[in-house]
């Protein structure tokens, strides 16, 4: 769903750039609370992994392909703020070095796939985790549904920018229907890849999946037995 230069006019693209920059500033702040010695290496890996999987276009319908956007996946694995940064970095690398996604359209792309993709994905995930049983499989199911919903949501966000600043005269309703329709299909692939990835990580190291933290035993239950007195001879008298 990488928007090239030219689809959206310059003023709207600049506006999207302001929205994206604001969202990144908020994410940088929020990511401080999410990144610690344990999660920081994983976050870099999540960004690199999403870059790799975004190269894997899968066929969805006659002559059409789709690829992972990764917003819901990143949010579940490393948290929404760090997740938004992961997607933004992937989009920046793709736009700067791979000519994938226009440079003037970077704000549009970050808003669609990072802000909306991660935001909608994470909210759906949170809502589902709250009502589903507190199990690992529920976390996997919730991330799959979140991933599925996040893709047409990002497609609708693109159509929103198209409605404001299209450079063509194709009616907005036509674009909206076509965009949401094809991205519902791509959403199925997004859900499958997200579920498989979350299930794999949760199977090996559930403690590294941010969206599965509620399954962990609270750390304050730990009891450290002391086996010797603090000072020698304290109990002699």
């Amino acid at each position, binding site marked *: *769903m*990488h*928007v*090239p*230069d*030219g*689809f959206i006019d310059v003023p709207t693209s600049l506006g999207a750039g302001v929205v994206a920059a604001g969202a990144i500033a908020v994410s*940088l702040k929020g*990511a*401080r609370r999410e*990144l610690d010695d344990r999660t*920081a*290496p*994983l*976050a*870099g*890996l999540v*960004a*690199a*992994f999403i*870059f*790799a999987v975004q*190269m*894997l*276009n*899968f066929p969805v319908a006659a*002559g*059409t*392909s789709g*690829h992972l956007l990764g917003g819901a996946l990143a949010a579940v694995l490393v948290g929404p703020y760090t997740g938004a*940064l*992961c997607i933004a*970095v992937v989009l*920046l*690398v793709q736009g*700067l*070095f*791979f*000519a*994938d996604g*226009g*440079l*003037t359209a970077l704000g549009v792309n970050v808003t669609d796939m990072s802000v909306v993709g991660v935001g909608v994905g994470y909210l759906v995930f949170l809502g589902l985790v709250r009502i589903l049983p507190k199990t690992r499989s529920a976390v996997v199911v919730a991330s799959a549904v979140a991933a599925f919903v996040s893709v047409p949501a990002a*497609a609708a966000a693109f159509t929103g920018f198209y409605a404001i600043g299209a*450079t*063509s005269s*194709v009616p907005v309703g*036509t*674009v909206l229907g*076509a*965009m949401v329709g*094809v991205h519902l299909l791509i959403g199925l692939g997004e859900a499958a890849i997200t579920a498989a990835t979350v299930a794999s990580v949760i199977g*090996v*190291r559930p403690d*590294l999946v941010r969206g599965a933290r509620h*399954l*962990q*035993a609270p*750390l304050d239950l*730990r009891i450290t037995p002391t086996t010797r007195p603090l000072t020698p001879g304290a109990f002699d008298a």
Partner: protein
Amino acid sequence: MPERTSRPASGSAQESAAVQTAGSPTRHRHTRLMVAIGLVLSLILAGVVSLYASGSPDGLEKVAEDTGFIDTATDHAAAGSPLADYQASFLDGALGQSVAGVVGVLVTLALFYGLTRLVRRGDRTG
């Protein structure tokens, strides 16, 4: 809410896992091993599996073609980049695609690590 009593074994196993592993050096090594495995997997996906990816236009491109606004796209400012369109310009065919994918994974990783350091440094001083 009362604790479920139907699966006491699972609960206590989880607790002892937390006691045993939180912050232990073994677990840190395990985390590094996992990140290494994940990185190798990402490099294989970007460098090898990507050669078999579908070449059809993606959802947006197809919609733009079908509804008739594809022609409003303009040339990319980085079209002359040595990695443009996921093809290393200095190498031919499949090898050029593989190298582009591998470089992309490593650049993304490096950029994100730099960003993480900045975020966490700000955390310590501010």
